[in-house]
């Protein structure tokens, strides 16, 4: 568009404007050639580019016949397309990168940005302008069907990684869509469910990652979610989309709906949901009618249009000539990210890495060794451009020295479960080491449905038991959407957690098993001992279509820490083949003024015999006097590479805003003054270094009422001075005497101030006079 947006807007009819703010087909935006407006193309998803030629190039639509075609597909047809995924059409092969739950375990901002760049190049080659990701909802419960797409239970880590991905994408000229805004933390009846979230949890946990990503990376679009939040559909939630997103955060970009997520188009536009996706004729008609009858003011329409025109300008400015994509290079990147993300959870007796000289006979078992579970099922599901099968890669990496056997170890059409187990255990017994691949059920996780339990597939657990009975050296490789419970943990010596690590998982696992690479990922969620102990358990999945987030701010490790519970594996945990020693900590500023960030220097050494990477984590403990706080909150991290014997000093920064807490009474952020604790270490439950810092805190004044206690009033110098003056004027005593006496007696007065003054101290003040004295300035 050559003309300015304002000029363009003045040339538009109301109908043009409505067209501009509605989708065009499934994946495009409006085309208005007479105004010089060309359509933008968008596509899913969060870890791979899903391009459907039928739907994008041939303007196909969702059709019931396609859907029925898939439903009627016989089970033995080689297809892993199930349920709602079938609705999203067939897509071109693209690099299937590690899913959010795996990627996040890298804790590596630069690497995540690299993945963003690669996604952008694949988008550009296909003419895609906006990739509908990243999805960053907090992983509140491991049951959530889309947990595999999201990063963490921690908002800071979530926000940092999202910012990195967005920077990578947008730096290459492809727009991001930060989603799903907000509080879509489980899939159970997601389009009807009302997430009831208290204000502190909303700001500190559920919105904080979004704000961080917006502050640091300015995503060109934000996508509203399918659910309701505190009573309102998010696409129609003005408090969320306007008051918080626009006014508090200053977000300038475009808000679009999730696909068919708008239920009332005029209401959604009034709330600040600029673009409704995809094309729905009724949406247009209803919006036109609402403008016609004055329900929606044209200035509201104009504001949204200007945002849309600005987005088009941004995209046109960044659009690059499509270049052929280096798909083998992207596959290598997918392998590399998987290697950086897979977490070594357990390694008894130093079983890993394997050495074919000591353990030449290797039994590989479990169906996922041949057919790895690399991703979840849903709108993000990608047709991989290449696939590393763990078994094949183990054979290649182990080389001709090793004797590798394989069997699935589970029954299928031809083999009974008993026969399969018998073969597997005989192979395991004849080997020096058994590598057992176990996974969660394919297709169970996904959209609009949650997992029913946290167990791995029952036949996989049975396989592990049978193997463990005959073979002491058992390595488990786990492929799962989100955390699972591990009643079988004692049956293996070593455990590699891959989550859904994308198309390069096979090579990554093989390289890690044989020590060509050293594991360096760490958990971004807590692994529970049982479903029943998880923080969201009691009120999940809600009833009568209301889902109370009753654990409040105590999400993930914050809950386990607060209740002093020991999880199966704590947040931040992950082992290495080398050892690291946390040597020293230095807090650069001993006291911290308002609005200042804090620098903490940490020295870490590699004391083992291998090159390795360590993720250094810094947690902050709040004074917790004014507002209750979890014992620890992650505030900074760094991934550092160390040669054997090498020592490095790393500077970590706690940003000024990360000392804040949301005060529900003030409806604002405060920084509580006092002493803050700083702990640094390799996991949230192993923090060998600690220090403190004195923080000045922010100036805030809590609202006082006639029934506020005198103790509270004494804390507020301005109000207290006025109360002292008021009492002095009625009693005839010196103000200084009154002040002293009131301070002394304050702890004894159990009633509110008005009653205390009038009934106990017999000071003749009116309610109105007292309220006047307590009023905020």
């Amino acid at each position: 568009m050559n003309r300015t947006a304002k000029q363009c807007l003045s040339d538009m009819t109301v109908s043009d404007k409505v067209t501009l703010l509605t989708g065009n087909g499934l994946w495009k935006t409006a085309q208005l050639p007479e105004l010089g407006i060309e359509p933008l193309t968008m596509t899913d998803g969060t870890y791979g580019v899903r391009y459907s030629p039928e739907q994008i190039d041939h303007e196909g639509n969702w059709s019931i016949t396609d859907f029925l075609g898939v439903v009627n597909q016989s089970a033995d047809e080689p297809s892993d397309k199930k349920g709602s995924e079938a609705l999203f059409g067939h897509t071109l092969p693209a690099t299937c990168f590690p899913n959010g739950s795996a990627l996040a375990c890298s804790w590596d901002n630069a690497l995540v940005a690299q993945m963003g760049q690669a996604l952008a190049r694949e988008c550009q080659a296909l003419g895609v302008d906006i990739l509908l990701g990243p999805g960053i909802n907090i992983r509140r419960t491991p049951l959530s069907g889309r947990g595999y797409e999201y990063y963490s239970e921690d908002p800071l880590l979530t926000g940092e990684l999202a910012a990195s991905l967005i920077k990578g994408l947008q730096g290459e000229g492809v727009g991001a869509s930060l989603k799903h805004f907000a509080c879509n933390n489980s899939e159970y009846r997601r389009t009807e469910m009302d997430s009831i979230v208290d204000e502190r949890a909303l700001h500190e946990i559920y919105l904080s990652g979004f704000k961080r990503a917006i502050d640091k990376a300015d995503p060109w679009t934000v996508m509203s979610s399918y659910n309701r939040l505190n009573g309102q559909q998010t696409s129609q939630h003005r408090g969320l989309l306007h008051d918080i997103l626009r006014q508090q955060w200053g977000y300038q970009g475009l808000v679009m709906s999730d696909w068919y997520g708008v239920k009332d188009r005029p209401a959604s536009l009034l709330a600040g949901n600029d673009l409704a996706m995809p094309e729905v004729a009724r949406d247009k008609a209803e919006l036109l009618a609402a403008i016609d009858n004055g329900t929606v003011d044209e200035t509201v329409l104009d504001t949204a249009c200007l945002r849309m025109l600005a987005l088009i300008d941004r995209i046109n400015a960044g659009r690059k000539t499509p270049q052929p994509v280096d798909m083998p290079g992207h596959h290598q990147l997918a392998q590399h990210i998987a290697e950086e993300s897979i977490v070594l959870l357990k390694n008894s007796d130093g079983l890993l890495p394997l050495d074919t000289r000591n353990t030449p006979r290797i039994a590989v078992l479990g169906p996922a060794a041949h057919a790895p579970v690399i991703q979840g099922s849903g709108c993000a599901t990608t047709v991989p451009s290449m696939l590393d099968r763990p078994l094949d890669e183990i054979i290649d990496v182990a080389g001709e020295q090793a004797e590798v056997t394989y069997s699935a170890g589970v029954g299928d059409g031809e083999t009974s479960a008993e026969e399969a187990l018998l073969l597997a255990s005989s192979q395991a017994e004849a080997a020096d080491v058994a590598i057992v691949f176990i996974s969660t059920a394919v297709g169970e996780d996904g959209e609009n449905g949650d997992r029913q339990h946290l167990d791995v597939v029952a036949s996989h657990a049975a396989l592990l038991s049978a193997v463990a009975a005959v073979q002491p050296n058992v390595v488990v490789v786990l492929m799962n959407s989100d955390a699972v419970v591990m009643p079988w943990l004692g049956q293996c010596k070593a455990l590699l957690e891959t989550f859904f690590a994308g198309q390069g998982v096979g090579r990554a696992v093989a390289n890690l098993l044989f020590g060509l690479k050293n594991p360096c990922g760490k958990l971004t969620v807590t692994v529970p001992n049982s479903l029943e102990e998880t923080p969201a358990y009691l009120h999940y999945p809600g009833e009568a279509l209301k889902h109370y987030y009753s654990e409040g701010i105590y999400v993930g490790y914050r809950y386990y820490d607060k209740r002093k519970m020991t999880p199966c594996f704590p947040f931040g945990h992950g082992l290495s083949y080398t050892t690291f020693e946390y040597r020293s900590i230095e807090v650069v500023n001993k006291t911290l003024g308002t609005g200042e960030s804090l620098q903490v220097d940490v020295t870490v050494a590699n004391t083992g015999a291998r090159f390795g990477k360590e993720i250094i984590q810094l947690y902050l403990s709040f004074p917790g006097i004014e507002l209750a706080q979890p014992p620890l909150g992650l505030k900074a991290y760094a991934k550092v590479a160390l040669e054997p014997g090498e020592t490095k000093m790393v500077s970590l920064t706690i940003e000024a805003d990360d000392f804040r807490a949301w005060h529900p009474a003030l409806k604002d952020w405060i920084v509580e003054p006092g002493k803050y604790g700083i702990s640094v270490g390799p996991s949230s439950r192993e923090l060998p270094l600690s220090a403190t810092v004195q923080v000045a805190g922010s100036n805030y004044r809590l609202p006082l009422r006639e029934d506020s206690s005198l103790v509270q009033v004494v804390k507020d110098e301005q109000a207290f001075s006025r109360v002292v003056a008021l009492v002095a004027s009625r009693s005839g005593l010196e103000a200084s005497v009154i002040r002293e006496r009131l301070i002394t007696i304050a702890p004894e007065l159990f009633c509110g101030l008005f009653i205390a003054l009038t009934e106990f101290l017999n000071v003749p003040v009116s309610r109105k006079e007292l309220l006047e004295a307590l009023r905020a300035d």
Partner: protein
Amino acid sequence: MQPFRLDSAQLDNQGIATAGTCELISYDSAQLNMFAAELSYCQPHWHEAPELIYVLSGDLSLTVHQQEVKLAAGDLAFIGADLIHALETQTGCTLLTLQFSPVLFHDTHPLPAGFAFFTAGQVAAGQLTAQCLSMLELVLQEGVSFFALQAQIYALLACLEVLLVRQPLISAMTVGAADSREEMVIRQSIARINETFAEPLTVADLAEQAHVSYSHFSRLFKKVSGYSPSDYLTMVRVNQAKPLLKSMQIPITDIAGKVGFAEHRAMLAAFKKYCGVTPTEYRKQYYADFDWRADDERVTATPNKPLALSLARQIMRTGSAKP
């Protein structure tokens, strides 16, 4: 045995099934198989249908009836009925192949026999190439008439007939005379390998079954087929393993056993030797190639990668695969 053979119109597994001694070739109503493919080698085999090869790109060595010739892009070769032929390339090559149905011929006018090759740049090669290209143009037309096709096939055969008289490398006469008992012995051994490769078969077993000494058997096998018997046996197993590797269903460790390798390590070594890649890498090459992957049923039936005939035409017209 799976020499390359694929026509775009139809493929049934019988078309490439081995029946005793040689490749069976099935035909559409056109009585001509025409296909293009990328390949790295083709084990010794023979069939009743005469065959004309045009080298689209790369170079290769072709062994026909114990004689080896080198071919490069633009060269052609004609291989008469029932001649044992094999080919091998270091760099990879793409070929356009035309196979003529025996139905095309008549008792009084037999099919051209013998073996000849034509070097690019020569008048003969030019004439044949032009005929092949006309054939290709015709095949790629929609709704072309059966008689038009048939006419072009005979035009091509007429051209071949004349050229074969002028420059045979192996004449039809020679072939008949050399069809000796010795060659029959080897053909039987090849047939045995083709049928029983999945079993633990050794060269000693084969020699014994042929009632000749081990060393004589080895020499004879090499002379007739161009390969040592152990090489041939391994090649057959590798060739059998390839379509299985392309199938996503079978675990790699099972494939080694299914095609007769004693253990997976033997398959690994054989692939390194004959393909320059490990079985894992071979499987991934296939998977990473979207054109190739797009039509699973067609490609899993052959160890080679088929090439669109339209692309073959482009190469023949311009000498390059790039538009």
